């Protein structure tokens, strides 16, 4: 089933800017897909994310989530129930001083009965592996843990789509790994549709599909490996390759017979194989 459908969507923050932050995007995302959206700063990728859950409404064109038009104010509540969003700054998303109270915030808002909220908190905290911190203070947690709590807060609403708007950008490598593991698990085990906005190319490799945005337009769309194979094109959008792919490309340029690798393991194997040949 089609989860998100964008039809020639344009969006402008202020009319006096005269520039479209999102400029004619046509896009379709199916349920259960894991899509990474790449792009440099100001490419319109965060704006695209906000257009999905009706935090922003298209200036032109039409955005639909499960067939509901985001421009119709009557649909906003239903759309946000279905499309949860985790933001960039782990400190600015919690409303309560206790983890479980914060996770309860979403279900409370949509009027879930009390007993059911307790079940949802259990489910959400288990899903992100934060059950042990149920009564802790968010301010005492690490960045990665805070983001996992934020994900739990979204999960408790039981959405079908999870949008992560650069949610790993402010985390250390370990925190990033924690969040990515949770997101992958949700996608694989719960069939959650994931839209991952990021500027870390390595994260995009974990997705089923990667979309590259440049100046408000979708300029590349395909399987991540395929996208990263087109390195010259990527460079023209000021994007780099994932680290392993970059190293293998440089090695190949230097005359070592390695094929393009995307993960550290693949790269290691390629190097070993080529050394054996020598």
């Amino acid at each position, binding site marked *: 089933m089609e989860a998100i459908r964008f039809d020639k969507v344009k969006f402008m923050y202020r009319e006096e800017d005269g520039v479209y932050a999102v400029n004619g995007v046509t896009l379709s995302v199916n349920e259960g897909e894991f899509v990474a959206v790449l792009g440099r700063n100001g490419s319109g990728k965060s704006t695209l994310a906000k257009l999905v859950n009706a935090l922003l409404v298209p200036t032109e064109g039409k955005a639909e989530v499960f067939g509901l038009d985001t421009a119709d104010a009557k649909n906003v509540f239903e759309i946000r*129930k279905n499309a949860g969003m985790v933001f960039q700054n782990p400190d*600015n*998303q919690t*409303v309560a*001083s206790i983890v479980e109270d914060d996770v309860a915030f979403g*279900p409370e808002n949509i009027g879930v009965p*009390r007993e059911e909220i307790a079940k949802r*908190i259990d489910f959400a905290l288990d899903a992100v592996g934060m059950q042990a911190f149920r009564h802790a203070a968010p*301010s005492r947690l690490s960045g990665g843990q805070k983001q996992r709590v934020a994900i739990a807060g979204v999960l408790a609403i039981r959405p079908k789509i999870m949008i992560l708007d650069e949610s790993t950008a402010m985390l250390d490598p370990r925190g990033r790994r924690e969040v990515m593991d949770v997101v992958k698990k949700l996608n694989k085990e719960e069939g959650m549709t994931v839209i991952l906005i990021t500027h870390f190319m390595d994260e995009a490799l974990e997705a089923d599909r990667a979309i590259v945005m440049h100046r408000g337009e979708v300029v590349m769309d395909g399987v991540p490996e395929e996208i990263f194979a087109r390195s010259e094109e990527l460079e023209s959008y000021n994007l780099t390759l994932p680290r392993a792919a970059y190293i293998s490309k440089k090695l190949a340029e230097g005359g070592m017979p390695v094929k393009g690798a995307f993960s550290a393991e693949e790269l290691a194997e390629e190097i070993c194989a080529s050394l054996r040949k020598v």
Partner: protein
Amino acid sequence: MLNDVTFGQYYPVRSFVHNMDPRAKIVFMIAYIVAIFLAKNFFALAAVTAFLILIVLLSRVPFGRVLRSVKMILFLIVFTAVLNLFFYSSGAELHIIWHWKFITVSWESVINMIFLAMRLFLLVMGTSVLTLTTTPVALTDGIESLLTPLKWIRFPVHELALIMSIALRFIPTLMDETNRIVAAQKARGANFETGGLIKRAKAVIPVLIPLLVSAFRRAEDLGDAMDARCYSGAKGRTKYKKLVFTWRDALGLIFTAALITGIVFLNLYLGGKFAILDYFFTK
């Protein structure tokens, strides 16, 4: 620095008092304050003191910890006590001990001073037991629940409670932020430690402005995050945490009622605070 939810002075142990309903505790505290001001003689104050000691014992908070809260207003207590000692006057005749120009020390003023100091002392100790045994979050919940009747006159009770809990939640975050900004400004050569009052006040400005700007940015982010989590005001909202009135609160109610009744009777039968003087001077 204050970087915990338990900022303020919450003392984290499990006890009878800790487990009471915050609403009940707030009501009992108000009753306790009323009791202090109802008390007209030392016997009544002694009853209040006994009540306080009982509560502190039940709360399992060390007495030293409760006493520490008095330290903050010790100056105020001493100041008012001294004023009362020197300048007490009433319509009735005084038993003067010492007199110099406009300063008069009498037995009545001594009694009055002791009485007043005890009152303030009991007042601060009692209220601090509330904050020592109740988390700010629970207090906010309690206040929200107690203010619920005001919804009838369209007072935004839910919004007020939400503002309070968000403010509580952001205190540690903004504290960290302040420390970071101070460190950053120090690294650029800002001086917060020396200079006169005006110079120091001026030095705070480069800290306050970035802090304010960042607070606004955070508020905007939080607004988006709340919207994304379907927040749309109090309408149609359920509440996960429910406050429950238990046997502890019922017991507390009996205690508090007994205290107030006891004080009324002590007031009626044992005279005013100066009754003790009659005993000495009419011999």
